[in-house]
């Protein structure tokens, strides 16, 4: 319990730090979004309109920095992140609300599938070590891990969508359907991008899980479990994998945290309407409010995922529960 409270305190502290840094960073940069807007309108803008823009973006340079800070915190709590420049005059809030579900659906699901699949394959390949097929998992895993993702994605897109026309070329849905058919349409659009993520991400999980598993399998408690006459499956999962997965939990939590940022390359290659795609566009057109909000969300997600990893760790490893003490 004490451990949990300590972790929650730490989470709150880091969230506050992230918020503050997110406030300071854009203010250290020269220029401001309103000026970007002006450039966009090629100077065809009146000073009044310019002022209105500044207020809309929440950059009132005449105000005390502390007042600005408190207003920023207030606005953030309310989910008010200002107005997007790229998609002017859409508020950043609705931009995020539109893109986050796409990203969570695609990147979230495929990250979980990649982790589960990679972990299972890693367990099996460690257990069946010295079997040709099991040992092939190492070069295959290394190959998948080191192949440039955008190249793999482009190759798949070219092959399966362009040449074979099995899958759509771009987008998250065709927008032609409603109801259940729409769900199927969305699923159909997500298969190929999800597949590329799973293929590229599972290689790493296979390798690390195989490594962990091999070192756990040489532990005395594995031999002892065999001496007890336990069934192979029980030794493999309850004694082997149960211990081997512990070091991977942190990595998995980090991966979960980064889901919200979207998979930039995936969403670009497949023109998928997720967070990564709008982040790319925000960067291209110096859309500070949008960038700031996305970065804030990414850091919050990573922090929360880390917190969840710590909590899961406590559930999975009794040694952490007592904090190293009796």
């Amino acid at each position, binding site marked *: 319990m004490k451990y949990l409270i300590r972790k929650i305190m730490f989470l709150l502290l880091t969230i506050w730090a992230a918020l503050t840094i997110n406030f300071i960073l854009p203010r250290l940069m020269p220029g401001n979004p309103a000026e970007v807007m002006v450039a966009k309108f090629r100077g065809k803008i009146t000073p009044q309109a310019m002022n209105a823009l500044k207020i809309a973006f929440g950059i009132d340079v005449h105000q005390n920095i502390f007042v600005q800070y408190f207003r920023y915190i207030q606005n953030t709590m309310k989910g008010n992140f200002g107005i997007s420049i790229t998609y002017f005059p859409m508020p950043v809030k609705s931009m995020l609300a539109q893109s986050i579900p796409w990203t969570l659906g695609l990147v979230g699901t495929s990250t979980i599938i990649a982790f589960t699949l990679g972990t299972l394959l890693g367990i099996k390949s460690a257990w069946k070590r*010295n079997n040709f097929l099991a040992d092939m998992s190492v070069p295959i895993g290394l190959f998948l891990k080191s192949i440039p993702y955008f190249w793999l994605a482009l190759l798949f897109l070219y092959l399966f969508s362009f040449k074979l026309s099995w899958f759509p070329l771009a987008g998250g849905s065709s927008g032609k359907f409603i109801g259940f058919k729409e769900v199927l349409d969305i699923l159909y659009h997500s298969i190929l991008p999800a597949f590329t993520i799973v293929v590229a991400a599972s290689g790493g999980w296979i390798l690390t899980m195989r490594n962990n598993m091999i070192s756990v399998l040489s*532990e*005395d*408690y594995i*031999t*002892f*479990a*065999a*001496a*007890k*006459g*336990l*069934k192979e499956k*029980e030794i493999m999962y*309850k*004694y082997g994998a*149960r*211990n081997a997965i*512990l070091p991977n939990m942190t990595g998995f939590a980090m991966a979960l945290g980064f889901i919200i940022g979207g998979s930039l390359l995936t969403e670009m290659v497949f023109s998928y309407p997720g967070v990564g795609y709008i982040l790319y566009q925000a960067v291209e057109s110096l859309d500070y409010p949008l960038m700031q909000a996305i970065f804030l969300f990414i850091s919050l997600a990573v922090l929360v995922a880390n917190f969840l990893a710590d909590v899961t760790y406590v559930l*999975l*490893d*009794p*040694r952490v529960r*007592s904090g190293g003490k*009796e």
Partner: protein
Amino acid sequence: MILRVNELNAGYTWGDNLVHAVNDVSFEVEKGEFLGIAGESGCGKSTLAFSITGLLRPPGHIFSGSVFFMGKDLANLSKEEIRRLRWKDFSIVFQSSMNVLNPVLRIKDQIFDGITAHVNVDKEELLAHTKKLFKLVNVSSEFLDAYPHQLSGGMKQRIVIASALSLNPKLVIMDEPTTALDVVVQRIILQEIDELRRKLGFSIIFITHDLSLLVEISDTLAIMYAGRIVEKAPSAELYAKPMHPYTEGLMNSFPPLSGKRKRLHGIPGHPPKLSEEIKGCPFATRCPKKMPICENISPPYIEVEKGHFVACHLYK
């Protein structure tokens, strides 16, 4: 007869390397017998224990010989048949009991799974039986819900012993089960084990590098050197009349229980490397009674007196 080991050869191979850790070992264990196997570190004791129980993992292999458990040749049994024998018919307690418990599972679950892998019992029976086992090894049953890291070394050891006895096996092999503990606890646990044996009637093979620990308690003692059994006799006889110069040397390395104070003598030199082929008697280089024949011909393992076996050219 519970166990018969017949000219067993085992060891480790990797690439062109070979370590011949168990060399032509033969012995028998009767029902209820306490057989002690003593020898220096690295003489193949643990390899012997692992070979007998079929737990030797690559790069370890059994090269030749056979192990008969209650008349059945273990080499002829399938993996599943051996799995069913484990814990129920023979169990093993490891050298490093500190690390034989799964760190993430509760103690009771680790005892339960050994039982439920072999017999069908309901939860209540399981718990009652485990409590009885804990009482047997003098561990309070409040530790049933504990995790391994919450226990002391001695407690873990007792719990592992309790687990090994949980299905009332006919043979328990103990590979240096008390080495990691201090002398006082060692002695207490050993006495407890012996009491349990008398109560439950199982046989024990007790492996240790500490001969003094075994002399009083075991029925029979076997002395291992460089992967071979060099002498085997009833404990009292071996203690009173050690025949092999190595046994004699060992006996002189610890103080007698009674009698005058004497200067203790170790055995000079080192045991031969098991990774090299040994010509003649493996003890020849360190033996104070060496004869020319010892360097060339390996002495046969023969019964010199009734029940007293020795492998030495001094005895014909």
